[in-house]
């Protein structure tokens, strides 16, 4: 087997599974689940084989063929494997497999398993397409397809009204972002004559004058949608209406990270102005989402806002890191890796986040399953004793995301981001450090309220540990959440080290000490503070009871949803209604019928012919046809 065959099998195995499920598995839930999990296992197995044993780490392109040519426009399909896509491949293949396993337990009683697992496989296919694509148009194609699979899976529970709304919202908001992305890609195509990423890298180096801030920001529009950055973040919290494994796979570990991955694939297309803008969007999202998380009582919503916030960290890391990479000192220190500092830091956090956030979501899924679909943390409590494996692994996830120094992976990746911000922008550094404190606090709140204390409902009282198909993935992901920060350990393939180690800036000396101290303070104050604030919480949130303005600030979510709802209902729909009215009455009513003096004449003529019997028309028609035909074929002699 050569590289192109391995990549082809990785890409097509889930598609084949989806096709088979569609053909045979719609009513056979067990078969559908088996096919889907088998495909995920093939993907994971081949990915590990590829990254540990087969691939030497050199960027490789494989299997390019022409897909469409129309005039001056042509599009090809091809694979590429390089340091950036290898990281993403590892995350998607490995985390994806364990979430598939978890789904076996979580979805065991679902009536539409065929649809669910078929959708999972379509998703895996689409996501792998993004990861392996060698050109921007191909990325766009699979980008749209992940949007579609996300739509189908969010809407899995057909009866739930909120699911119907949420899946629609997710798709439409993403389309708004894709509007900009496609525009940007078309502009790049005509500017550089190609969308091949390797060729673009060369062209951007040779003629940097072709780059423009506008095109970079158009590409970033796609990231705003897919990675749910402000102001297009509104779909992600609502997307929690889907089944929990979907939230873990699509809306935490992989798809929402696709935006960050896209940035990391093409760091050379962005001007410094664009990078600065991107970075600040990330900072704003990180901070705002952390604030909003405090007023959420739904366990999945808290995690959703934390995902938004962590994605903000990644986007900020990309922006500031790439800016820093352009400075002379960075080039001196990191050499050829300097251009990838932003990508490296963002991907490092993406990887650790994929592990610990998938862990947290699956943990929440385990809790929800055990509590009979109870999602309100104020109706839980005391779960640590009743569900020890879930509880302990969840605590590991909390420690990781809080960034407790050296305890788990989150610390290392967040530390690199804080260091980059420290080097480039002190204000952003301050905001991100404060966000880290907030993160530790709201995650502490989640753990304290849901897992400690006494049960607040019967469901929580009777919760029992879930079966092994559900807790085993938790254990695996917990191990990775701890160890993935120590990238040189063999848990991470050595071929990923260029991105996860060499291209990740780490502080040394005094700065190192300072940053560890800040991380320790943020995590420590946050977690311990949360313990003391929330440990005696009854049925209502202490913030709501005692600090109303803060609660209101958090609960408002800065009125983004309200603003969009107002726009849709009061602007868009009204304009549509008015236009529809004009269309009906002006164009077809007045213009058409008014100018139809001709029509009047026709009407008189028609009345003369009007025998009241429609069959007469039919026979007239055929008679006319026959005469005409006869004439045309020369039957009347000439």
């Amino acid at each position: 087997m050569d590289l192109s065959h391995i990549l082809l099998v990785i890409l097509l195995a889930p598609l084949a599974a989806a096709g088979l499920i569609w053909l045979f598995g719609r009513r056979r839930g067990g078969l559908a689940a088996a096919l889907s999990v088998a495909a995920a296992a093939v993907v994971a197995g081949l990915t590990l084989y590829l990254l540990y044993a087969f691939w030497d780490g050199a960027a490789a392109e494989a299997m390019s063929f022409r897909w469409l040519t129309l005039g001056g426009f042509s599009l090809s399909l091809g694979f590429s494997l390089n340091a950036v896509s290898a990281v993403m491949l590892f995350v998607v293949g490995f985390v994806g497999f364990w979430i598939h396993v978890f789904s076996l337990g979580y979805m065991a009683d679902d009536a539409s398993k065929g649809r669910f697992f078929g959708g999972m496989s379509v998703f895996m296919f689409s996501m792998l397409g993004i990861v392996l694509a060698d050109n921007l148009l191909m990325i766009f194609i699979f980008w749209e397809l992940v949007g579609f699979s996300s739509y189908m899976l969010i809407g899995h529970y057909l009866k739930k009204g909120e699911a119907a709304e949420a899946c629609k919202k997710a798709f439409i908001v993403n389309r708004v972002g894709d509007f900009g992305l496609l525009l940007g890609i078309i502009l790049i195509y005509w500017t550089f004559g190609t969308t091949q990423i390797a060729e673009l890298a060369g062209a951007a180096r040779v003629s940097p004058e072709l780059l423009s801030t506008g095109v970079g920001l158009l590409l970033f529009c796609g990231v705003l949608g897919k990675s749910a950055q402000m102001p297009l973040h509104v779909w992600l919290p609502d997307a929690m209406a889907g089944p929990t494994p979907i939230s873990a796979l699509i809306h935490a570990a992989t798809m929402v990270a696709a935006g960050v991955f896209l940035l990391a694939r093409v760091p050379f297309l962005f001007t410094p102005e664009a990078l600065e803008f991107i970075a600040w969007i990330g900072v704003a999202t990180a901070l705002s989402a952390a604030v909003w998380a405090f007023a959420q009582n739904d366990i999945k919503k808290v995690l959703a806002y934390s995902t938004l916030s962590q994605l903000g960290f990644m986007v900020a890391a990309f922006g500031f890191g790439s800016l820093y990479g352009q400075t002379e000192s960075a080039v001196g220190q990191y050499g050829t890796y300097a251009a990838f500092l932003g990508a490296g830091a963002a991907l490092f956090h993406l990887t650790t986040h994929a592990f610990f956030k998938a862990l947290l979501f699956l943990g929440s899924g385990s809790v929800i399953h055990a509590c009979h679909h109870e999602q309100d943390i104020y109706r839980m409590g005391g779960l640590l004793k009743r569900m020890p494996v879930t509880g302990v692994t969840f605590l590991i996830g909390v420690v990781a995301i809080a960034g407790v120094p050296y305890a788990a992976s989150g610390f290392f990746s967040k530390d690199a981001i804080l260091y980059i911000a420290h080097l480039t922008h002190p204000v952003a550094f301050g905001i991100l450090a404060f966000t880290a404190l907030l993160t530790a606090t709201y995650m502490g709140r989640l753990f304290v309220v849901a897992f400690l204390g006494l049960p607040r409902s019967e469901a929580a009282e009777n919760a029992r540990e879930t079966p092994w198909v559900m807790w085993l993935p938790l254990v695996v992901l917990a191990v990775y959440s701890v160890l993935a920060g120590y990238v040189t350990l063999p848990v991470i393939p050595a071929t990923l080290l260029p991105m996860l180690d060499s291209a990740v800036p780490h502080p040394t000396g005094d700065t190192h000490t300072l940053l560890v101290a800040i991380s320790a303070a943020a995590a420590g104050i946050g977690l311990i503070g949360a313990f003391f604030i929330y440990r005696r919480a009854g049925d209502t949130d202490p913030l709501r009871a005692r600090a109303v303005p803060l609660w209101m600030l958090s609960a408002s979510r800065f009125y983004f949803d309200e603003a969009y709802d107002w726009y849709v209902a009061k602007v868009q729909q009204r304009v549509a209604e008015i236009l529809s009215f004009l269309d009906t009455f002006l164009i077809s009513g007045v213009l058409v019928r008014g100018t139809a003096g001709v029509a009047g004449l026709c009407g008189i003529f028609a009345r003369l012919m009007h025998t009241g019997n429609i069959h007469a028309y039919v026979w007239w028609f055929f008679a006319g046809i026959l005469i005409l035909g006869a004439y045309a074929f020369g039957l009347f002699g000439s």
Partner: protein
Amino acid sequence: MALFGGIAEFLRGLEAESPRVHTSMLLFGIFGPLAFAFALAISGKLEAGAVRVAALLGFLLPVVSAFWLWATYASMGLNGGYAFFVNTPTGLDAIGVSLFLGLNGISLPLYVMSAVIGLAAGLYAIHTNVERMRLYLILLLTMQGGLMGMFASIDLLFFFFFHEFALIPTFIMIAMWGRAARRTVAIELTIYLTLGAMLTLGGLVALAWMSGAEGFNLIALQLALVDAEHQKLIFGLLLIGFGILVSLFPFHSWAPRGYATAPAPAAMLHAGVLKKFGLYGLIQVAVPLLPEGMGAWAPLLMWLALGNIVIIGLVTLAQRDLKLMLGNASVMHMGYAFLGVFAFSAAGAGGAVFMMIAHGLSVALLFLLADSIERRCGTADLRELGGLGQSAPVLMAFFVAAVMASIGLPGFANFWGELAIFAALWQSASPWVLVPALSGIVISAIYGLRAVSCVFFGEARVNYRGGDLRGLEKAGALLLLGALLVLGFWPRLFSDDVNAAVGSLYPVEPPVAEHFLAEE
């Protein structure tokens, strides 16, 4: 692969030895359905089953013809040029008219599309139980024969004649089997489309007359020249005439109501195939033959096409009836095809042809499914529908797929048409058009998903009967969805032929003429 090679070898050999086989296939495709229609009309009492089987055979003939010719064409390596000539003299030789048929890289894919949609419409018609079934099928078969002939005509009079041949049964079917207010709608549609057809005929006659060409057909006209002044006049006539027939804004108002009122198979054939007459005429005839005229009218065309996309797109958002919504959406998507024509380049025209094919398949599928929904629920009002997803998961899967196809999701044919048009627009005389045109991908997502959500999600609200999609109805839907997916995954099945043909008619980059710039 060896099998394909063998087939290609066989067909090539046949071409060399007895080319009449292929031209006979072409004639079968056109006159087969007509012969079945005629036979059904004159035969005496028949079993209901026999009528259905006969009609089905009538719909199958064009499919056999289309796939045969397609395979032959592929084996011949014609580079988009014309093949399968039939040239039968008529009594009109004095004015250069003969029954002159043939297919090229543009018309062949449309010929195949029209055969596929015809079969799907036929299957659906046979599945539904309407009164006066025999007449219903006779009219549909007549339509189908006209549609096949329309795309196979090289002679312009026959091109027009076959169009009318397909059009008139539409009126009758709307008047006899339509929904509420069918008479009014039928008359409005008749007047409107007759007007459009008259203008078109006037333009075509003027074109033949002023060019002083030898014959009244596409091949003879390609060599003819018309001076710039007359080009503008003729192009104007053709643009408005064809425009009315393709529901160019603001001449569109017949379309949504017509489609919503028509019985589903008629709507499928009209919206899916017949409507493409105008675009086909523009792409194959008007624009390549009248470049100066195109230059003069391009700015207007651009604004009107944007009207289709943005204004009708928004109007679609306000629709409450599923079929009216689909009718408006279909009008909206024609805007993309017009913009492809406007781009005046091989990419734009090729994209427009691909869009026509894809749109034809997807809109036919949508009307089929919408009618299935309406027949099961007794209403097509989006506010009353709901919750069908649980009891009809297959219907839901098809409907979601059809909506996704029509809003341009990759994996379906429509995506390629839209993408090529978008790409071509940036090179057109007014690159900024790309921005409002792209807004359509958001608008169409909104109304498409809203329809899915209204019909299938939530608790069941109306009394639902008839079970899931099944039988011939499912077969018809599967045929269309399959075609959309095959072209979505492998666009080159058609696009290489289309590309070769438009490549010989259109420049790679649009010409930068003064009047293009003067209008800016």
